[in-house]
């Protein structure tokens, strides 16, 4: 009967090993690849937010809302409040995402399926519109985010990028472990039950909406964190972060990676970035088509995403 413990420790140690492998890469990987991975980890966090909602049966076509909020909060706090510490900035971004989710969640958790998708989309586009109208925030040009410090240490040049890379590895690993615990927790499994049959959950004495609400808030928090990390890493934010095609990309990656495990979104994000980089380079005129074909092929031949290649011989650890 020690199954749960094994489960936790096995994923926990796997995350730790993976994090160490990637951390060791800091001094081995070419800088462009480290940068690609930094952004992919950040993106993976946002996608993880999409994935945990997919486990609840909800597909968000507006997760970019929180991605964008996270990015802008980091940018604004660093520009206007003069906060330069990366950890403080990320905490602010996460907090802002959670606050926003608390405000919208009560409305959104009334909706399911395509209506949830469209309403999330509408919300993110309203933010987009508001940012485009804000000349003070640079409108569509956005603005640049200063390089952060790390607990008082302000690295320069290459060290700066390496520190950001390590930060993204650490944040991704911490969130992966946390979300994994969340996914196998009582609440986490009830979320799947809500996807399967809301009525039954209600008649078991639980509120499906309250369950979905907590899940929505968690998803928002990590997506905003991902947005904040992106802002720090790329050094630039603009309203495109909130536009619906950005959300579409997150859903794309979620499908690509699969929803079977906390690792899946990160694998999806890395593979997506690599495919896109090479598609853009090899077929600058037809990279969208390449992506579209890959996506179709995945849906047709690998419906559970890349993760099913890794976890082929057993049902997904967290049933999907």
């Amino acid at each position, binding site marked *: 009967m020690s199954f749960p413990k094994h489960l936790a420790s096995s994923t926990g140690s796997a995350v730790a090993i*993976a994090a160490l492998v990637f951390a060791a890469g800091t001094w081995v990987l070419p800088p462009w690849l480290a940068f690609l991975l930094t952004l992919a980890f950040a993106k993976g966090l946002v996608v993880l937010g999409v994935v945990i909602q997919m486990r609840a049966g909800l597909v968000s076509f507006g997760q970019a809302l929180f991605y964008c909020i996270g990015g802008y909060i980091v940018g604004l706090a660093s520009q206007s409040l003069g906060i330069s510490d990366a950890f403080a900035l990320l905490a602010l971004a996460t907090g802002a995402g959670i606050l926003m989710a608390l405000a919208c969640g009560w409305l959104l958790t009334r909706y399911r399926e395509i209506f949830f998708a469209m309403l999330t989309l509408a919300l993110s586009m309203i933010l987009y519109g508001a940012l485009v109208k804000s000349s003070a925030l640079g409108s569509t040009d956005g603005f640049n985010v200063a390089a952060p410090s790390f607990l008082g240490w302000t690295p320069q040049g290459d060290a700066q990028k390496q520190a950001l890379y390590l930060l993204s590895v650490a944040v991704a690993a911490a969130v992966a472990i946390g979300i994994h615990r969340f996914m196998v927790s009582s609440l986490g499994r009830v979320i799947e039950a809500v996807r399967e049959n809301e009525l039954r959950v209600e008649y078991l004495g639980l509120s499906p909406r309250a369950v979905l609400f907590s899940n929505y808030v968690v998803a928002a928090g990590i997506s905003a964190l991902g947005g904040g990390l992106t802002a720090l890493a790329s*050094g630039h934010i*603009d309203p495109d972060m909130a536009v619906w095609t950005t959300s579409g990309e997150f859903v794309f990656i979620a499908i690509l990676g699969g929803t079977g495990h906390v690792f899946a979104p990160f694998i999806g994000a890395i*593979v997506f970035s690599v495919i896109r980089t090479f598609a853009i*380079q090899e077929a600058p005129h037809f990279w969208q088509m390449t992506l579209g074909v890959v996506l179709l092929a995945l849906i047709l031949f690998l419906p559970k995403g890349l993760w099913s290649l890794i976890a082929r011989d057993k049902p997904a*650890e967290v049933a999907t």
Partner: protein
Amino acid sequence: MKSIPHFPSQTFRLAASAAAITLITGMSASAVAADNGKYRIGIVTFLSGAAAGPFGVPASNAAKLTIDTLNSGKMLAPYTKIGINGLEIETVLLDEAGGATKQAEEFRNLVQRQKVDAVIGYISSGDCLAIAPAAEELGVPTLFFDCGTSKVFETVKNPKYLFRTGLDAVVDNVAAARYVAETRPNIKTVASIQQNYAWGQDSWADFSLSLKQLLPNVSVVSEQWPKLLQGQYGAEISALSVSRPDIIHSSFWGGDMEALMLQGGARGLFDKSVAVLTAGETGVETFKSNVPNGTVIGGRGPYGAFAPKNALNDWFRPAFTAEFKADPTYPAYKMVQAILALKAAAEKTAKPGVMPTSDQVVKGLAGLSFEAPSGTVKMARTNGHQAVQDVSFGEYRFDPKTGKGSVANVKTYAADCVMPPDGSTPADWIKAGFPGAKCK
């Protein structure tokens, strides 16, 4: 949950997959460009989306034509040397679509994986802002050929590797205001229709401020802010018609501009109101009889239809038209200009036949004065990193016999007349009444 995974195999599998991904991506790292003795230039411009047709593709066509000509050694003086400094040029072409974060990532890929020696590109102002710090950080000569935001050199205060070989958008709108004030001093009302994004907002702010200085009695009767790429301007055209402005200022570009002119023209909007199109030059070929004669258009510098007569232009214009079956528009001119700037800079400081280093290129480029199809370009602002050129405005003329459009009543404004001096922000400079402006 059917089978209980064994602790070691589960861990192993996860760790193995992590390692596999590292390996796969690591292998892709080995796909970096080998040092082949060629001078590699990364060219980044829109190849998809709405900006591809009017800007991106003419620019990439111009790049292809220019680089082919340079590599064959058949370019006119002073650019007769093969390629750059005698080295053949190799191009890496990328699509600018996808947003600033993606461009920041691709820029690093260009420099660190593709090992390009210089980057020329970027039409979108947002992309320019995102790339600017990265260019300085990575220390690769980066030439912005088109983007118009005045904030580039506010973001990077003391640029070393970053240059802009074209003009910023402030210049266009100051010049447009001057042109209007000189040719139509009796106007009373002005209306505006801009795409609702940074470019449109900045353009209107600069133009309306300038016009207020030059013609203080003109009042603004309508401001329309349709969404970028909306395509349908029925309601906006009605609103503009109702407000009966004397002139209508618009920074619309590409398909949106053509759609606006088409729809507005058909509905007689321009019978009473003159349109001022700061980016109108790309439409000279396509407007035909849909746009009334007298419409004020600009070309964001002495480019395209406004290009002067000189030997380089006599080569470029017919050669481009012959190869691509279309006249070169301003983005094409700006691209040639950027490539020639790079070549001139490299050959100025590097030993002949030797691969120029980044430092040699930026040293040569700072403060450089070079020849382009648009005339002489001086890198004279922001410590020699920002190009200075004259700006022209004129009126559209359509010749029904030849079926071709052209520009007439062209007025050219010297850079010192329409460009804020170093150290002052455009808005402050305009509000103060253009202090130090030298107009003829």
